[in-house]
Protein backbone atom coordinates (compact mmCIF):
# COMPACT_ATOMS: atom_id res chain seq x y z
CA UNK A 1 0.00 0.00 0.00
CA UNK A 2 1.47 3.34 -1.03
CA UNK A 3 0.40 6.22 1.18
CA UNK A 4 -0.27 9.72 -0.03
CA UNK A 5 2.09 12.45 1.16
CA UNK A 6 -0.70 13.95 3.25
CA UNK A 7 -1.39 10.66 5.05
CA UNK A 8 2.32 10.31 5.73
CA UNK A 9 2.50 13.86 6.99
CA UNK A 10 -0.35 13.36 9.46
CA UNK A 11 1.05 9.99 10.53
CA UNK A 12 4.53 11.41 11.12
CA UNK A 13 3.30 14.67 12.66
CA UNK A 14 -0.14 13.99 14.08
CA UNK A 15 -1.98 17.20 15.02
CA UNK A 16 -3.79 17.69 18.31
CA UNK A 17 -2.95 14.38 19.93
CA UNK A 18 -4.14 14.06 23.47
CA UNK A 19 -7.09 14.14 25.79
CA UNK A 20 -9.39 16.73 27.31
CA UNK A 21 -11.17 16.36 30.64
CA UNK A 22 -14.23 14.34 29.75
CA UNK A 23 -16.03 15.52 32.90
CA UNK A 24 -15.81 19.17 31.81
CA UNK A 25 -19.34 20.18 30.68
CA UNK A 26 -17.93 22.07 27.71
CA UNK A 27 -16.14 18.96 26.43
CA UNK A 28 -17.80 16.40 24.16
CA UNK A 29 -16.21 12.96 23.79
CA UNK A 30 -16.73 10.49 20.96
CA UNK A 31 -15.39 6.95 21.19
CA UNK A 32 -16.10 4.84 18.11
CA UNK A 33 -14.93 1.55 16.64
CA UNK A 34 -13.94 -1.59 18.50
CA UNK A 35 -10.63 -3.27 19.31
CA UNK A 36 -11.75 -6.51 17.59
CA UNK A 37 -12.31 -4.55 14.39
CA UNK A 38 -8.82 -3.12 14.59
CA UNK A 39 -9.88 0.48 14.86
CA UNK A 40 -10.87 2.70 17.78
CA UNK A 41 -11.01 6.49 17.64
CA UNK A 42 -11.41 8.86 20.52
CA UNK A 43 -12.22 12.40 19.46
CA UNK A 44 -12.92 15.27 21.84
CA UNK A 45 -14.12 18.81 21.32
CA UNK A 46 -14.13 21.76 23.70
CA UNK A 47 -16.92 24.19 22.92
CA UNK A 48 -17.31 27.80 23.95
CA UNK A 49 -20.80 27.77 25.53
CA UNK A 50 -21.43 31.40 24.63
CA UNK A 51 -20.65 31.20 20.92
CA UNK A 52 -21.01 27.48 20.20
CA UNK A 53 -17.60 27.60 18.55
CA UNK A 54 -15.25 24.62 18.90
CA UNK A 55 -12.14 26.04 20.50
CA UNK A 56 -10.10 22.89 20.88
CA UNK A 57 -10.14 19.34 19.53
CA UNK A 58 -8.03 16.33 20.46
CA UNK A 59 -7.79 12.74 19.29
CA UNK A 60 -6.26 9.38 20.02
CA UNK A 61 -6.57 6.58 17.50
CA UNK A 62 -5.85 2.86 17.41
CA UNK A 63 -5.97 1.94 13.75
CA UNK A 64 -4.12 2.01 10.48
CA UNK A 65 -2.17 4.99 9.21
CA UNK A 66 -5.17 6.26 7.27
CA UNK A 67 -7.33 6.12 10.39
CA UNK A 68 -4.72 8.09 12.32
CA UNK A 69 -4.46 10.64 9.51
CA UNK A 70 -8.26 10.91 9.18
CA UNK A 71 -8.72 11.68 12.85
CA UNK A 72 -5.76 14.04 12.94
CA UNK A 73 -7.23 15.93 9.98
CA UNK A 74 -10.67 15.90 11.62
CA UNK A 75 -9.35 17.76 14.65
CA UNK A 76 -7.91 20.44 12.36
CA UNK A 77 -11.19 20.80 10.51
CA UNK A 78 -13.17 21.08 13.74
CA UNK A 79 -11.30 23.93 15.34
CA UNK A 80 -12.96 27.27 14.77
CA UNK A 81 -16.24 25.83 13.47
CA UNK A 82 -19.50 26.05 15.32
CA UNK A 83 -21.04 22.81 16.50
CA UNK A 84 -23.68 23.07 13.78
CA UNK A 85 -21.07 23.66 11.09
CA UNK A 86 -19.10 20.70 12.39
CA UNK A 87 -22.12 18.47 11.93
CA UNK A 88 -21.92 19.18 8.20
CA UNK A 89 -18.44 17.65 7.85
CA UNK A 90 -18.61 14.66 5.50
CA UNK A 91 -16.19 11.78 5.27
CA UNK A 92 -15.76 12.50 1.55
CA UNK A 93 -13.97 15.75 2.44
CA UNK A 94 -11.46 13.67 4.40
CA UNK A 95 -11.15 11.16 1.56
CA UNK A 96 -10.41 13.93 -0.93
CA UNK A 97 -8.05 15.87 1.29
CA UNK A 98 -5.99 12.75 2.14
CA UNK A 99 -6.40 11.02 -1.27
CA UNK A 100 -7.56 7.83 0.47
CA UNK A 101 -7.89 4.73 -1.74
CA UNK A 102 -11.22 2.84 -1.76
CA UNK A 103 -10.16 0.25 0.86
CA UNK A 104 -9.45 3.08 3.31
CA UNK A 105 -12.74 4.91 2.95
CA UNK A 106 -14.11 3.26 6.07
CA UNK A 107 -11.30 4.90 8.08
CA UNK A 108 -12.70 8.31 7.06
CA UNK A 109 -16.24 7.14 7.86
CA UNK A 110 -15.01 6.31 11.33
CA UNK A 111 -13.67 9.85 11.68
CA UNK A 112 -17.03 11.28 10.65
CA UNK A 113 -18.72 8.99 13.18
CA UNK A 114 -16.30 10.18 15.85
CA UNK A 115 -17.14 13.83 15.12
CA UNK A 116 -20.85 13.10 15.35
CA UNK A 117 -20.41 11.10 18.55
CA UNK A 118 -18.42 13.90 20.19
CA UNK A 119 -21.08 16.47 19.27
CA UNK A 120 -23.87 14.22 20.47
CA UNK A 121 -22.08 13.81 23.78
CA UNK A 122 -21.59 17.56 24.10
CA UNK A 123 -25.23 18.27 23.30
CA UNK A 124 -26.44 15.66 25.77
CA UNK A 125 -24.36 17.32 28.46
CA UNK A 126 -25.71 20.81 27.75
CA UNK A 127 -29.27 19.45 27.78
CA UNK A 128 -28.64 17.79 31.13
CA UNK A 129 -27.23 21.05 32.39
CA UNK A 130 -30.10 23.15 31.00
CA UNK A 131 -32.76 22.56 33.71
CA UNK A 132 -30.19 23.39 36.37
CA UNK A 133 -29.30 26.70 34.72
CA UNK A 134 -33.00 27.46 34.18
CA UNK A 135 -33.59 27.11 37.90
CA UNK A 136 -30.79 29.40 38.85
CA UNK A 137 -31.99 32.05 36.39
Amino acid at each position, binding site marked *: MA*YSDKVLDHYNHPRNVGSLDKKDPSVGTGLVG*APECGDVMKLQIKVNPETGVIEDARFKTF*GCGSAIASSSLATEMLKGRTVDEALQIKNTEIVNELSLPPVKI*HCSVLAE*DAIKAAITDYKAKTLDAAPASAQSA
Partner: protein
Amino acid sequence: MLKFPIYLDNHATTPLDPRVLETMMPYFGEHFGNAASRNHSFGWVAEEAVERARKQLASLIGATSKEIVFTSGATESNNLAIKGVAEMYAQKGNHIITAATEHKAVLDTCKRLEKHGCQVTYLPVRTDGLVDLDQLRDAITDKTILVSIMYGNNEIGTVQDIPAIGKLCHEKGVLLHTDATQAVGKIPVNVIQDNIDLLSASAHKMYGPKGVGMLYVRRKSPRVQLTAQMDGGGHERGMRSGTLNVPGIAGLGKAAELCQELMPHEMAEHARMRDHLKDKLMAELDETYVNGTMERRLPHNLNISFAYVEGESLLMGINDIAVSSGSACTSATLEPSYVLKALGAGDDLAHSSIRFGIGRFTTGEEIDYTAGKVIEVVKKLRELSPLYEMVKEGVDLTKVEWAAH
Protein backbone atom coordinates in the same frame (compact mmCIF):
# COMPACT_ATOMS: atom_id res chain seq x y z
CA MET B 1 27.04 -0.82 7.08
CA LEU B 2 23.30 -1.25 7.18
CA LYS B 3 21.53 -1.39 3.85
CA PHE B 4 17.88 -0.42 3.61
CA PRO B 5 15.26 -1.68 3.44
CA ILE B 6 16.06 -4.55 5.79
CA TYR B 7 14.44 -7.81 4.71
CA LEU B 8 12.84 -9.76 7.57
CA ASP B 9 10.01 -11.41 5.66
CA ASN B 10 11.69 -14.72 4.92
CA HIS B 11 8.47 -16.69 5.39
CA ALA B 12 6.94 -14.91 2.40
CA THR B 13 9.92 -15.70 0.25
CA THR B 14 13.68 -15.95 0.55
CA PRO B 15 16.26 -14.23 -1.63
CA LEU B 16 17.91 -16.40 -4.25
CA ASP B 17 21.29 -17.61 -3.04
CA PRO B 18 23.93 -16.50 -5.60
CA ARG B 19 25.29 -20.07 -5.65
CA VAL B 20 21.84 -21.28 -6.69
CA LEU B 21 21.65 -18.72 -9.47
CA GLU B 22 25.05 -19.79 -10.73
CA THR B 23 23.89 -23.40 -10.86
CA MET B 24 20.79 -22.44 -12.83
CA MET B 25 22.39 -20.22 -15.46
CA PRO B 26 23.70 -22.84 -17.91
CA TYR B 27 20.20 -24.36 -18.19
CA PHE B 28 18.84 -21.06 -19.44
CA GLY B 29 21.61 -20.96 -22.05
CA GLU B 30 23.58 -23.67 -23.78
CA HIS B 31 21.93 -26.54 -21.87
CA PHE B 32 18.41 -25.73 -22.96
CA GLY B 33 17.40 -29.31 -23.70
CA ASN B 34 14.17 -31.02 -22.71
CA ALA B 35 14.81 -33.56 -19.97
CA ALA B 36 12.38 -35.92 -21.69
CA SER B 37 14.37 -35.99 -24.93
CA ARG B 38 15.95 -39.43 -24.82
CA ASN B 39 17.72 -39.37 -28.17
CA HIS B 40 20.38 -36.71 -27.97
CA SER B 41 22.84 -35.07 -25.69
CA PHE B 42 20.71 -31.95 -25.20
CA GLY B 43 18.13 -34.09 -23.47
CA TRP B 44 20.71 -36.11 -21.57
CA VAL B 45 22.38 -33.05 -20.11
CA ALA B 46 19.04 -31.70 -18.95
CA GLU B 47 18.03 -35.06 -17.52
CA GLU B 48 21.32 -35.29 -15.67
CA ALA B 49 20.62 -31.95 -14.00
CA VAL B 50 17.13 -33.06 -13.01
CA GLU B 51 18.38 -36.35 -11.58
CA ARG B 52 21.10 -34.57 -9.62
CA ALA B 53 18.47 -32.31 -8.11
CA ARG B 54 16.30 -35.30 -7.26
CA LYS B 55 19.22 -36.83 -5.33
CA GLN B 56 19.96 -33.58 -3.53
CA LEU B 57 16.34 -33.27 -2.40
CA ALA B 58 16.04 -36.92 -1.46
CA SER B 59 19.16 -36.58 0.65
CA LEU B 60 17.79 -33.52 2.45
CA ILE B 61 14.57 -35.26 3.54
CA GLY B 62 15.77 -38.86 3.87
CA ALA B 63 13.89 -40.13 0.80
CA THR B 64 14.98 -41.91 -2.36
CA SER B 65 15.25 -40.12 -5.69
CA LYS B 66 12.32 -41.95 -7.22
CA GLU B 67 10.02 -40.60 -4.56
CA ILE B 68 10.49 -36.97 -5.60
CA VAL B 69 7.92 -35.44 -7.98
CA PHE B 70 8.73 -31.97 -9.31
CA THR B 71 5.93 -29.40 -9.39
CA SER B 72 5.48 -25.66 -9.83
CA GLY B 73 5.56 -25.02 -6.08
CA ALA B 74 4.01 -25.96 -2.78
CA THR B 75 0.54 -24.82 -3.80
CA GLU B 76 0.53 -27.35 -6.60
CA SER B 77 2.11 -30.02 -4.41
CA ASN B 78 -0.60 -29.58 -1.78
CA ASN B 79 -3.31 -29.74 -4.43
CA LEU B 80 -1.81 -32.82 -6.04
CA ALA B 81 -1.32 -34.63 -2.74
CA ILE B 82 -4.77 -34.00 -1.33
CA LYS B 83 -6.86 -34.20 -4.49
CA GLY B 84 -4.75 -37.05 -5.81
CA VAL B 85 -5.29 -39.12 -2.67
CA ALA B 86 -8.99 -38.25 -2.43
CA GLU B 87 -9.52 -39.44 -5.98
CA MET B 88 -7.30 -42.52 -5.83
CA TYR B 89 -8.62 -43.80 -2.49
CA ALA B 90 -12.27 -42.85 -3.02
CA GLN B 91 -13.24 -46.53 -2.74
CA LYS B 92 -11.62 -46.75 0.66
CA GLY B 93 -13.16 -43.64 2.19
CA ASN B 94 -13.94 -39.96 1.78
CA HIS B 95 -12.84 -38.40 5.06
CA ILE B 96 -9.89 -36.02 5.38
CA ILE B 97 -8.55 -34.43 8.54
CA THR B 98 -6.62 -31.18 8.56
CA ALA B 99 -6.12 -28.25 10.95
CA ALA B 100 -7.47 -24.72 11.20
CA THR B 101 -4.02 -23.18 10.95
CA GLU B 102 -3.04 -24.72 7.62
CA HIS B 103 -2.03 -22.66 4.61
CA LYS B 104 -4.82 -21.68 2.20
CA ALA B 105 -3.38 -24.05 -0.38
CA VAL B 106 -4.45 -26.89 1.92
CA LEU B 107 -7.64 -25.38 3.36
CA ASP B 108 -9.11 -24.25 0.06
CA THR B 109 -8.21 -27.57 -1.57
CA CYS B 110 -10.14 -29.32 1.20
CA LYS B 111 -13.05 -26.92 0.78
CA ARG B 112 -13.25 -27.76 -2.89
CA LEU B 113 -13.22 -31.48 -2.13
CA GLU B 114 -16.12 -30.95 0.26
CA LYS B 115 -18.12 -29.78 -2.75
CA HIS B 116 -17.29 -33.07 -4.41
CA GLY B 117 -18.52 -35.31 -1.66
CA CYS B 118 -15.57 -35.45 0.72
CA GLN B 119 -15.96 -34.89 4.42
CA VAL B 120 -13.33 -32.74 6.04
CA THR B 121 -12.58 -32.25 9.71
CA TYR B 122 -10.77 -29.00 10.51
CA LEU B 123 -9.11 -29.63 13.85
CA PRO B 124 -8.79 -26.66 16.17
CA VAL B 125 -5.37 -26.01 17.67
CA ARG B 126 -4.44 -25.41 21.27
CA THR B 127 -3.55 -21.89 22.39
CA ASP B 128 0.11 -22.74 21.80
CA GLY B 129 -0.68 -23.49 18.14
CA LEU B 130 -0.23 -27.25 18.38
CA VAL B 131 -2.67 -29.92 17.25
CA ASP B 132 -3.91 -32.06 20.13
CA LEU B 133 -2.99 -35.69 19.43
CA ASP B 134 -5.95 -37.07 21.34
CA GLN B 135 -8.31 -34.93 19.32
CA LEU B 136 -6.68 -36.15 16.16
CA ARG B 137 -7.01 -39.78 17.30
CA ASP B 138 -10.68 -39.24 18.09
CA ALA B 139 -11.32 -37.63 14.71
CA ILE B 140 -10.05 -40.62 12.74
CA THR B 141 -12.87 -42.87 11.49
CA ASP B 142 -12.92 -45.95 9.26
CA LYS B 143 -13.69 -43.56 6.40
CA THR B 144 -10.56 -41.48 6.97
CA ILE B 145 -8.06 -41.72 4.13
CA LEU B 146 -5.77 -38.76 4.72
CA VAL B 147 -4.47 -36.51 7.46
CA SER B 148 -2.86 -33.26 6.26
CA ILE B 149 -1.01 -31.34 8.96
CA MET B 150 1.71 -28.82 8.21
CA TYR B 151 5.22 -29.22 9.58
CA GLY B 152 6.09 -25.63 10.46
CA ASN B 153 3.55 -22.83 10.39
CA ASN B 154 4.18 -19.92 8.03
CA GLU B 155 2.82 -17.30 10.43
CA ILE B 156 3.62 -18.40 13.95
CA GLY B 157 6.43 -20.87 13.21
CA THR B 158 4.87 -23.59 15.33
CA VAL B 159 6.41 -27.00 14.63
CA GLN B 160 3.84 -29.77 14.93
CA ASP B 161 4.85 -33.13 16.37
CA ILE B 162 4.90 -34.75 12.94
CA PRO B 163 6.70 -37.97 14.03
CA ALA B 164 3.96 -38.66 16.59
CA ILE B 165 1.18 -37.66 14.20
CA GLY B 166 2.68 -39.91 11.53
CA LYS B 167 2.98 -42.81 13.94
CA LEU B 168 -0.67 -42.45 14.88
CA CYS B 169 -1.71 -42.28 11.21
CA HIS B 170 0.26 -45.41 10.38
CA GLU B 171 -1.24 -47.32 13.29
CA LYS B 172 -4.67 -46.40 11.96
CA GLY B 173 -3.80 -47.14 8.33
CA VAL B 174 -4.28 -43.52 7.29
CA LEU B 175 -1.91 -41.59 5.02
CA LEU B 176 -0.11 -38.50 6.33
CA HIS B 177 0.55 -35.52 4.10
CA THR B 178 2.56 -32.64 5.51
CA ASP B 179 2.99 -29.19 4.03
CA ALA B 180 6.62 -28.77 4.99
CA THR B 181 7.19 -25.63 2.93
CA GLN B 182 8.48 -23.63 5.88
CA ALA B 183 10.37 -26.49 7.51
CA VAL B 184 12.34 -28.22 4.78
CA GLY B 185 15.86 -26.87 4.68
CA LYS B 186 15.39 -25.04 7.98
CA ILE B 187 15.05 -27.86 10.50
CA PRO B 188 15.76 -31.58 10.20
CA VAL B 189 12.94 -33.32 8.33
CA ASN B 190 13.17 -37.05 7.67
CA VAL B 191 10.29 -38.79 5.94
CA ILE B 192 11.20 -42.19 7.41
CA GLN B 193 11.73 -41.15 11.03
CA ASP B 194 8.77 -38.78 10.83
CA ASN B 195 6.41 -41.38 9.30
CA ILE B 196 5.49 -39.07 6.41
CA ASP B 197 3.76 -40.40 3.28
CA LEU B 198 3.48 -37.20 1.27
CA LEU B 199 5.42 -33.98 1.74
CA SER B 200 5.21 -30.62 -0.03
CA ALA B 201 8.07 -28.16 -0.34
CA SER B 202 8.88 -25.09 -2.39
CA ALA B 203 12.18 -23.74 -3.74
CA HIS B 204 11.55 -20.07 -3.06
CA LYS B 205 11.29 -20.62 0.69
CA MET B 206 14.78 -22.14 0.79
CA TYR B 207 16.84 -19.64 -1.21
CA GLY B 208 15.87 -21.17 -4.53
CA PRO B 209 13.83 -19.75 -7.42
CA LYS B 210 10.08 -19.12 -7.53
CA GLY B 211 7.75 -21.36 -9.47
CA VAL B 212 9.29 -24.72 -8.63
CA GLY B 213 8.66 -27.17 -5.84
CA MET B 214 8.30 -30.82 -5.10
CA LEU B 215 6.05 -33.47 -3.68
CA TYR B 216 7.53 -36.47 -1.93
CA VAL B 217 5.41 -39.57 -2.57
CA ARG B 218 6.34 -42.62 -0.49
CA ARG B 219 7.03 -45.79 -2.52
CA LYS B 220 7.38 -48.38 0.25
CA SER B 221 5.37 -49.36 3.34
CA PRO B 222 2.99 -48.05 2.32
CA ARG B 223 3.28 -47.49 -1.40
CA VAL B 224 1.29 -44.31 -1.99
CA GLN B 225 -0.63 -43.86 -5.21
CA LEU B 226 -2.05 -40.64 -6.58
CA THR B 227 -4.45 -39.76 -9.32
CA ALA B 228 -2.70 -37.20 -11.51
CA GLN B 229 -4.34 -33.81 -11.58
CA MET B 230 -2.58 -32.71 -14.75
CA ASP B 231 -3.00 -34.90 -17.82
CA GLY B 232 -0.49 -35.02 -20.61
CA GLY B 233 2.82 -36.61 -21.49
CA GLY B 234 3.06 -38.71 -18.35
CA HIS B 235 6.14 -37.07 -16.86
CA GLU B 236 7.16 -37.69 -13.25
CA ARG B 237 6.01 -41.32 -13.15
CA GLY B 238 2.67 -40.22 -14.56
CA MET B 239 1.88 -38.10 -11.52
CA ARG B 240 2.60 -34.72 -12.99
CA SER B 241 2.68 -34.17 -16.73
CA GLY B 242 4.43 -31.20 -18.26
CA THR B 243 7.93 -30.49 -19.54
CA LEU B 244 10.19 -30.09 -16.57
CA ASN B 245 11.42 -26.65 -15.52
CA VAL B 246 15.06 -27.69 -15.78
CA PRO B 247 16.75 -24.46 -14.59
CA GLY B 248 14.29 -24.19 -11.70
CA ILE B 249 14.78 -27.80 -10.72
CA ALA B 250 18.57 -27.48 -10.89
CA GLY B 251 18.21 -24.46 -8.62
CA LEU B 252 15.93 -26.28 -6.20
CA GLY B 253 18.47 -29.11 -5.98
CA LYS B 254 21.34 -26.77 -5.28
CA ALA B 255 19.24 -24.89 -2.73
CA ALA B 256 18.53 -28.19 -0.96
CA GLU B 257 22.20 -29.09 -0.92
CA LEU B 258 23.17 -25.73 0.57
CA CYS B 259 20.44 -25.94 3.20
CA GLN B 260 21.58 -29.38 4.25
CA GLU B 261 25.18 -28.23 4.55
CA LEU B 262 24.39 -24.99 6.39
CA MET B 263 21.53 -26.22 8.58
CA PRO B 264 23.38 -26.86 11.85
CA HIS B 265 25.01 -23.45 11.71
CA GLU B 266 21.92 -21.58 10.49
CA MET B 267 19.56 -23.12 13.03
CA ALA B 268 21.77 -22.01 15.90
CA GLU B 269 22.50 -18.60 14.43
CA HIS B 270 18.89 -17.76 13.53
CA ALA B 271 17.58 -18.89 16.90
CA ARG B 272 20.19 -16.75 18.60
CA MET B 273 19.20 -13.66 16.60
CA ARG B 274 15.51 -14.38 17.06
CA ASP B 275 15.84 -14.73 20.82
CA HIS B 276 17.92 -11.59 21.01
CA LEU B 277 15.21 -9.66 19.13
CA LYS B 278 12.48 -11.10 21.34
CA ASP B 279 14.37 -10.34 24.56
CA LYS B 280 15.09 -6.77 23.55
CA LEU B 281 11.50 -6.06 22.55
CA MET B 282 10.03 -7.65 25.65
CA ALA B 283 12.45 -5.91 27.98
CA GLU B 284 11.51 -2.47 26.66
CA LEU B 285 7.81 -2.87 25.93
CA ASP B 286 5.09 -3.98 28.32
CA GLU B 287 2.03 -5.94 27.18
CA THR B 288 3.92 -7.69 24.41
CA TYR B 289 3.00 -11.28 23.66
CA VAL B 290 4.61 -14.02 21.60
CA ASN B 291 2.08 -15.87 19.43
CA GLY B 292 2.60 -19.62 19.33
CA THR B 293 4.77 -21.75 21.55
CA MET B 294 8.48 -20.98 21.95
CA GLU B 295 9.12 -24.65 22.76
CA ARG B 296 8.44 -26.05 19.31
CA ARG B 297 9.18 -23.32 16.84
CA LEU B 298 11.04 -22.70 13.61
CA PRO B 299 14.33 -21.09 14.66
CA HIS B 300 13.93 -18.15 12.30
CA ASN B 301 10.37 -17.20 13.27
CA LEU B 302 9.12 -14.60 15.73
CA ASN B 303 5.47 -13.57 15.80
CA ILE B 304 4.65 -11.03 18.42
CA SER B 305 1.68 -8.85 19.35
CA PHE B 306 2.15 -5.35 20.72
CA ALA B 307 -1.14 -4.78 22.51
CA TYR B 308 -3.03 -1.53 21.83
CA VAL B 309 -1.00 -0.82 18.68
CA GLU B 310 -2.54 -1.62 15.31
CA GLY B 311 -0.30 -3.66 13.03
CA GLU B 312 -0.52 -1.65 9.85
CA SER B 313 0.23 1.62 11.58
CA LEU B 314 3.27 -0.08 13.09
CA LEU B 315 4.44 -1.31 9.68
CA MET B 316 4.05 2.23 8.42
CA GLY B 317 6.36 3.50 11.11
CA ILE B 318 9.01 0.88 10.44
CA ASN B 319 8.83 1.22 6.68
CA ASP B 320 12.54 0.67 6.23
CA ILE B 321 12.06 -2.89 7.54
CA ALA B 322 10.16 -5.46 5.48
CA VAL B 323 7.96 -7.60 7.76
CA SER B 324 4.31 -8.61 7.70
CA SER B 325 1.36 -8.30 10.03
CA GLY B 326 -1.73 -10.33 10.87
CA SER B 327 -3.69 -7.09 11.01
CA ALA B 328 -6.91 -6.88 9.00
CA CYS B 329 -5.87 -3.52 7.64
CA THR B 330 -2.97 -5.14 5.77
CA SER B 331 -5.08 -7.88 4.22
CA ALA B 332 -7.24 -7.62 1.12
CA THR B 333 -10.20 -9.14 2.94
CA LEU B 334 -10.05 -6.77 5.93
CA GLU B 335 -10.09 -9.85 8.16
CA PRO B 336 -7.36 -10.40 10.74
CA SER B 337 -5.16 -13.48 10.47
CA TYR B 338 -7.20 -16.69 10.76
CA VAL B 339 -4.13 -18.43 12.15
CA LEU B 340 -3.92 -16.07 15.11
CA LYS B 341 -7.69 -16.23 15.59
CA ALA B 342 -7.40 -20.02 15.73
CA LEU B 343 -5.10 -19.65 18.76
CA GLY B 344 -8.01 -17.98 20.51
CA ALA B 345 -5.88 -14.98 21.36
CA GLY B 346 -8.67 -12.54 20.51
CA ASP B 347 -8.99 -10.47 17.38
CA ASP B 348 -7.49 -7.44 19.05
CA LEU B 349 -4.14 -9.21 19.47
CA ALA B 350 -4.29 -10.48 15.89
CA HIS B 351 -4.62 -6.87 14.72
CA SER B 352 -1.52 -6.01 16.73
CA SER B 353 0.78 -8.74 15.46
CA ILE B 354 4.02 -8.57 13.53
CA ARG B 355 5.82 -11.53 11.98
CA PHE B 356 9.60 -11.41 11.76
CA GLY B 357 11.30 -13.97 9.53
CA ILE B 358 15.07 -14.18 9.82
CA GLY B 359 17.07 -15.52 6.89
CA ARG B 360 20.46 -16.59 5.61
CA PHE B 361 21.53 -13.03 4.86
CA THR B 362 20.24 -11.37 8.04
CA THR B 363 22.92 -9.70 10.16
CA GLY B 364 23.12 -9.03 13.89
CA GLU B 365 23.34 -5.34 13.10
CA GLU B 366 20.02 -5.51 11.26
CA ILE B 367 18.41 -7.21 14.24
CA ASP B 368 19.69 -4.52 16.60
CA TYR B 369 18.40 -1.78 14.33
CA THR B 370 15.04 -3.50 14.01
CA ALA B 371 14.64 -3.90 17.75
CA GLY B 372 15.43 -0.23 18.34
CA LYS B 373 13.12 0.99 15.63
CA VAL B 374 10.19 -1.19 16.67
CA ILE B 375 10.53 -0.09 20.28
CA GLU B 376 10.56 3.57 19.26
CA VAL B 377 7.51 3.28 17.00
CA VAL B 378 5.46 1.15 19.41
CA LYS B 379 6.07 3.73 22.14
CA LYS B 380 5.03 6.53 19.84
CA LEU B 381 1.88 4.73 18.71
CA ARG B 382 0.91 3.90 22.27
CA GLU B 383 1.02 7.62 23.02
CA LEU B 384 -1.55 7.87 20.24
CA SER B 385 -3.60 4.88 21.36
CA PRO B 386 -6.90 5.48 23.17
CA LEU B 387 -6.81 1.84 24.29
CA TYR B 388 -3.43 2.15 25.96
CA GLU B 389 -4.63 5.28 27.72
CA MET B 390 -7.81 3.57 28.92
CA VAL B 391 -5.89 0.57 30.24
CA LYS B 392 -3.48 2.84 32.07
CA GLU B 393 -6.50 4.56 33.65
CA GLY B 394 -7.64 1.17 34.87
CA VAL B 395 -10.48 0.61 32.38
CA ASP B 396 -11.22 -3.02 31.59
CA LEU B 397 -11.50 -3.00 27.80
CA THR B 398 -13.58 -6.15 27.76
CA LYS B 399 -16.25 -4.37 29.81
CA VAL B 400 -16.57 -1.39 27.48
CA GLU B 401 -19.61 -1.35 25.21
CA TRP B 402 -17.95 -0.85 21.88
CA ALA B 403 -19.84 0.61 18.98
CA ALA B 404 -18.72 -2.17 16.66
CA HIS B 405 -19.44 -1.50 13.02
